[in-house]
């Protein structure tokens, strides 16, 4: 099977799963923005997705993609580490034009994974999971307000999003390059697209964190004072 046996096949799986995860992030981020615009609207989305069959299929598919992406990342890293040989260079200097993120995708990936675990505990376990178990889910907006009003959660989420930005600035164009959608003219363009997509995704998520942090701390205090 070429998706397992060949190097390009393995990278093909990485790029397809990665690209799907980016599409999910765009969807998730758009959904989150609704919380800023309309709290009722956000709760409606939560209800609409909830534990309905399509949301469950989506979640299962997403979990499968994420696991595949992580599994292949580990396999590729082990193989690449071995391919490097036992002896290492005594002096190594970064080459011109080599992005820092491209050299640290695994480390960034681990930070993102830790963030996902935190996120699942914070939100998913209290929303979709409890609904699957047959109990009443927590209110989406209330949960967001509660979580991000605490400065350490807000900070952790921002750090997480920061790593995500680095991961995506390399990941998006790299996936296009792996799929062969690149040439001398398009390489700078896909790198630019990559930066735009990464920034857009991260800004969408960060906006919600920052908005509810400020709303929970500053405006809350103002309201109390009034």
């Amino acid at each position, binding site marked *: 099977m070429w998706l397992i046996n060949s190097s390009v096949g393995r*990278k093909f799986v990485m790029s397809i799963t990665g690209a799907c995860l980016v599409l999910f992030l765009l969807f998730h981020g758009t959904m989150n923005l609704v919380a800023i615009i309309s709290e009722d609207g956000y709760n409606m989305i939560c209800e609409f997705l909830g534990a309905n069959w399509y949301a469950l299929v989506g979640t299962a598919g997403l979990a499968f993609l994420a696991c595949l992406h992580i599994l292949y990342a580990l396999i590729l890293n082990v193989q690449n580490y071995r391919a490097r*040989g036992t*002896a290492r260079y*005594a002096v190594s*200097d970064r080459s011109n034009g080599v992005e820092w993120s491209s050299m640290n995708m695994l480390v960034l990936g681990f930070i993102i994974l830790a963030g996902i675990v935190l996120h699942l505990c914070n939100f998913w376990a209290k929303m979709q999971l409890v609904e699957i178990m047959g109990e009443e889910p927590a209110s989406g907006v209330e949960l967001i307000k509660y979580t991000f009003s605490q400065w350490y959660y807000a900070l952790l989420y921002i750090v997480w999003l920061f790593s995500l930005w680095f991961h995506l600035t390399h990941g998006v164009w790299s996936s296009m390059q792996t799929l062969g959608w690149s040439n001398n003219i398009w390489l700078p363009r896909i790198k630019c697209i990559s930066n735009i997509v990464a920034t857009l995704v991260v800004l969408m998520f960060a906006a919600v964190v920052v908005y509810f942090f400020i709303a929970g701390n500053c405006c809350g205090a103002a309201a109390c004072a009034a």
Partner: protein
Amino acid sequence: MDKTINITLKVWRQAGPKAKGHFETYKLNNISTDSSFLEMLDVLNEQLISEKKEPVVFDHDCREGICGMCSLYINGHPHGPDSAVTTCQLHMRRFHDGETITVEPWRSNAFPVIKDLMVDRRAYDKIIQAGGFVSVNTGGVPDANAIPIPKKNADEAMDNASCIGCGACAAACKNGSAMLFVAAKVSQLALLPQGRVEAANRVKAMLGKMDELGFGNCTNTGACAAECPKSVPLSAIARLNREFICAKFKD
């Protein structure tokens, strides 16, 4: 009068493939800044021979940047700090007086050290043997204009054909991948009608051989193209991926 510099060299010495290697430090005085890096190593070897010591083994041949024999990882860069030149074209004017220069062999699983700075790069030959050619029945010389080729394709094929197979790409790659080399060799033929005929089989055979020989998986860091002495572009790897994925989907 020539400008001269005094330098300290830290050179990797290794008696054989299985032996344990180590760095040896040498001091060289009055090296002309107009001499090439390899000429400087010749001076070092003359000095070692006169001291009845074993000279440093390093690969070299044409000394004009076209054969791909010279290698050397100098101060953290394959072919040294200059861009788009091979070690033989690197000049001592790139270094300053009193500088310590670290010289290492290519380090990659598929390029085992033979001795000192010389590594076994036959893995690249094996990849070429797997399909890096056009099989034709030789007959009369065909008319040069019988097969029209767009200028753009001819130029790009030529850019890829400039690969000299020195191994700098795999040496620079943090994943020990030979993708830029394979990409250049696949591209130079895939871009021309003569090579198009066997393109699908060629890409499968060459990539299969690359994987089999223990080279790593490309993660598009781009160090290969940045360090390539012939400036083979990173887009060649995209073409290789495209050719390979299309060939697999057709199967």
